[in-house]
Every structure is written in C-alpha cells, then in structure tokens.
C-alpha cells in the first residue's frame, strides 16, 4: 500500500492577534532533525516552538538507513521501539563487481546491544512517529504552515513568519536552524558552504513489489543490468525497495525522472515488470559544510550545517548526533548552569564529526565515480584485483557506514581500559540486570562504577554494576575495576581505574565548559 500522506492540522498561531512572549527556543524545520531536537530539549525540560513551512511528512523514502547510534538516540526520545518494529533490520552488506560478489561486511557481529546495527525505514515514517511524539508532548509547540521569511538577532532572535492567515513575529533566546540542505535560514544569514561538489547524478527510486529479498544492502559496480555504472539496492518495509542508479553527469535530470525512462531501467535491475513505481528523484552530490555551526544565537543543526553524499548514511545519522550533542549543552546554557561558551564545544565537536563524515563520504564518492585518468585506473584495478587477492576486497568503497566519531579530548584516561570506551567515544551498550546500560545513561551526567567503591561526589548520579563478562570486555579490559564519567549524550567524558572526589569534580567541571 502506498503511504498515506495525510496533512497535519494547521491552527492559527496566537501571535497573529497579539504579541507572544519570548520563547526559550524556536526550531525552524520539522524534519527528523528539528523534531528530534524538540523532543530532546523537552526531555531536558526545555520548551520549544517548531516552525515548518509545510504540513506533510517528507515525500519519498529519502533518509532510510538509521544507524545503531541513531536508534539509541531515537529510543531515548521515545520512538525507538516504533522504528525498530516497523523497520527492516539488517547488518550484512554485499558488494558486487559485474555478477561476482567481491566484498561482504557484517556490521554488528557481537551481541549485547539493545539496538541493531541498522534499520531501514522510510523518512516519512520516522517523521510521522516523531510528529506524533511531539504532539503528545506539552513542551513542544508544533506549528505547520509557518514559514520563516526573515531573521534578526540582537542578544535574542526575532523571526518573521508567514502563515495562511497572515504574518507575525516570534522572539526566542535561541533559534535552531534545522531547515535542511537548502536551508533558507543559511541564505538569510548570507552563509555559504565550503567543500566539494561532485559532478555525478544518481536516479533514486522507490518501487513496490512482492518478493522475498534478503534484508541486506547490495551494491554493484558495473552491473550487467546497468552497464558501466553503479547501483544500490535496499529493502524497506511495506514491500518497498529502494534503488539508486548512477546516471553520469551528462544525464538530463528532468528527462530521467519520467516513468517511461525510469521503468525500463528498473525492469533491468529486478528482471521483471511486476512492480509499481512509488517515488522517483534525481540527485547530485555535495560534501560540504558551514565553517561554523554556531552564529551567536542562531545554531545550525543537521543538513543545514553540513551535507554529504548518501553513500554511508551519514546525513540523517550525522544530524541526529548533532541533536544529541546540542540538547544538553543548550539546556545548561539556558538554565544558567553553564556559560554560553559551552556552545563552542558543540561547534568544535560537531564540525569535527562533520569533517569525518565528509571525509568518508567524499572517499566513497570518488571510488564510485572516479575522475577519468589515473583515478579511474586505480579504482578499476582494485575491483579487478579483488577477484584474485583478498587484500583488495576491503579497499572497495561503496560507502563506509555511519558510526559516531570519537571526539578529541585531553580528559583523564587509563591505558589499561579498552580503547572502544576511551574518553570522547559514545558509551557501548551492554545488558545490565533485566535491561540495558544505555537506558541507565543519558539526560544527565552519571558516574558509572564497575567493581569499584563509590566516591562521594555531590550533584551527580552514581550507577553501579557488578562487572559481567560483557561489561568487562567493553569497560574494564585488563583492569578489575573502573569509574566512568558519562555525559548526558552518553559520551564518555573521563575514566579512571581509581579516582577520588576531587579528580571527578575537576573532570565534571571541564566537561561542562
């Protein structure tokens, strides 16, 4: 069944008849990032107004691959179970050159995580679930058909807004630009992206068909069904399959979108004509970002701040990591428990994360669409070698899938403890009691004590577990005890084998700056 794009209700905002009080936060854009941002702030007790120029979810599947880290974040926001229940869980990716499989990866070979490696779910479902969660949350004021037309800032922000019933203005302490890759706010502030634009076009199509395809990501270089180009195939729920086909830079995007052109291409991919075309688009790539994400009281989050090519699923997932990083920091600044300088760490950490995503997606894109000459020579010879030597297989790059970056930090650490949980990394999940460690972390600073006495530190929650085998592997390494200081975004702030209260307080205050 095709998705029912039911419009969300519009109600005339109060600001049309009388000035509204200044808001704490106004969020522009009710895509996955803006909606998640509102829910994240609400979990910290911060109210927000979300403005969107539209009143339906995104049309077409768009962002479909939600990483384990995103699922953990979305779970904290209350929609994790809906997404994993509805979505297609997968962890195996297969890469083919012509008809031969040349590389296969398994993303989560170890168990002991609440969330799977990846779930495929159309962006419209994710938006729908997030909208419903926002509508049920008294701290989120969601306003559809409210288009921002101008912004000014002077110690606070003022936006001018168009609605079907006229215009009004709204003031806020902070304005969060979650308005996507083409961000009108970015243009209103006169800000430009820096980075690479790739001269390549891809056709993207959702088709509905009956079939029993495995839940795997499949990528082809030079497939027989699409000569000389590349192709990507993903399973989604509702018998919807996503197909991306490389077209070349010379392709005419308008002509390629037409069903009489698309359908024969898809027939060659799936080998029959028993499918229904659900959505088609033609896109080109950019791997670029803003130099800074924080512009006084206007903060860019998600695609408005950085864009990547889709191979690697680093767009939507990277944006959710922005949300995760910003929520607690903005809350602390609004509540006066941290200086506004804490927002500089959002800028520093998330530009670092964006650079890692851009680096990975740029490399994948260059491998997939090599420039003529030596770049194409090496790409083709890596593919040729892969069929005769194992070492070349992992060099084949059809996208390195989204993983959270490890933030650079000078925080206290101990080399006896495992690398995967070093300061700057996101905490690793593990079963604890009848639940999951991830459910015990988040929303506040916590001290995780494993096999260790509990130091007396005021103003911080302590959680304590006897080390199981999995906790040992992920948190202790060769030590028999440890103390971890973990941030509200579940990032490890510092860790010790032994620590006294003074050491912990010093690390805590450093993490709040």
């Amino acid at each position, binding site marked *: 069944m095709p998705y029912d794009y039911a419009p969300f209700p519009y109600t005339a905002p109060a600001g049309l008849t009388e000035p509204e009080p200044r808001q704490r936060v106004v969020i522009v854009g009710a895509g996955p990032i803006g909606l998640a941002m509102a829910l994240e702030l609400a979990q910290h007790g911060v109210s927000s107004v979300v403005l969107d120029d539209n009143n339906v979810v995104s049309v077409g599947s768009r962002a479909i691959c939600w990483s384990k880290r995103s699922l953990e974040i979305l779970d904290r926001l209350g929609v994790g179970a809906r997404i994993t229940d509805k979505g297609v869980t997968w962890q195996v990716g297969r890469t083919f050159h012509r008809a031969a499989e040349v590389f296969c990866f398994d993303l989560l070979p170890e168990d002991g995580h609440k969330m799977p490696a990846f779930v495929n779910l159309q962006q419209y479902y994710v938006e729908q679930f997030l909208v419903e969660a926002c509508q049920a949350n008294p701290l989120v004021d969601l306003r559809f058909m409210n288009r921002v037309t101008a912004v000014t800032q002077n110690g606070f922000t003022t936006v001018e807004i168009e609605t079907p019933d006229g215009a009004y203005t709204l003031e806020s302490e902070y304005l969060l630009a979650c308005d996507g890759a083409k961000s009108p706010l970015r243009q209103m502030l006169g800000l430009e992206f820096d980075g690479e634009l790739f001269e390549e076009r891809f056709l993207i199509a959702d088709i509905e068909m009956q079939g029993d395809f495995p839940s795997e990501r499949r990528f082809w270089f030079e497939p027989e069904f699409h000569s000389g180009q590349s192709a990507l195939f993903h399973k989604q729920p509702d018998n919807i399959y996503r197909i991306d086909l490389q077209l070349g830079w010379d392709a005419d995007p308008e002509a390629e979108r037409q069903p009489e052109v698309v359908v024969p291409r898809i027939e060659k991919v799936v080998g029959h004509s028993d499918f229904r075309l659900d959505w088609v688009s033609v896109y080109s790539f950019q791997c670029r970002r803003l130099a800074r994400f924080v512009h006084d009281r206007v903060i860019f989050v998600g695609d408005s701040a950085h864009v990547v090519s889709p191979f690697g699923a680093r767009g939507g997932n990277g944006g959710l990591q922005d949300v995760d990083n910003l929520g607690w920091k903005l809350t602390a600044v609004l509540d006066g428990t941290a200086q506004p300088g804490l927002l500089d760490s959002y800028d520093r950490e998330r530009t670092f994360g964006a650079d890692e995503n851009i680096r990975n997606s740029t490399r994948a894109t260059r491998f997939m669409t090599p420039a003529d000459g030596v770049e194409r*020579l090496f790409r083709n*010879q890596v593919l040729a070698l892969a069929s005769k030597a194992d070492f070349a297989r992992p060099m084949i790059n059809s996208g390195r899938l989204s993983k959270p970056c490890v933030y650079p930090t000078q925080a206290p650490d101990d080399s006896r403890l495992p690398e995967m949980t070093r300061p700057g990394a996101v905490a690793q999940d593990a079963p604890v009691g009848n639940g999951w460690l991830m459910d015990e972390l988040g929303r506040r600073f916590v001290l995780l004590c494993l096999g260790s006495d509990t130091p007396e530190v005021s103003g911080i929650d302590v959680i304590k577990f006897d080390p199981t085998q999995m906790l040992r592997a992920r948190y202790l390494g060769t030590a028999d005890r440890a103390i971890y200081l973990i941030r509200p975004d579940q990032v490890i702030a510092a860790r010790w084998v032994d620590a006294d209260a003074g050491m912990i307080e010093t690390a805590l205050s450093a993490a709040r700056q």
Partner: protein
Amino acid sequence: MTLITSPNIAQADEFYAELLAAHNGLSDAQSHALNAQLVLILANHVGDPNTLKEALTLARQGFDTPP
C-alpha cells in the same frame, strides 16, 4: 620499518627483465593496469603506513618542478 633505498634485490638485472617480460604483449592501457595492480600488491605487502608514505614521497620527488 623505514623505506629501504639502498640496493636490496639480489639479482636486480634479473628482476628488471622479469618486470619488462610481465608486460609482454600488453597494450599501453593494459600495461598501466598491470602497473597499478603491482603497486597495490606491493603496497599491501609493505603494509607499514610510514614506509608507504616515504615511498610515495620518494616517487613524487622531481615531478613538482616543471621539466
């Protein structure tokens, strides 16, 4: 490991002849392809990133100045 830049192939003339022989009967494009594969195979054998960087730097020497 550092890049060995002193003579290290016992029968250098022999290897040189074998290298040329490996290209026998290939077109220019095929020869380029074979060389690319050879670079990748040998680079994987070396493995050490610093040694590889030194090799890239040495190979690149002289190409940056106009002829």
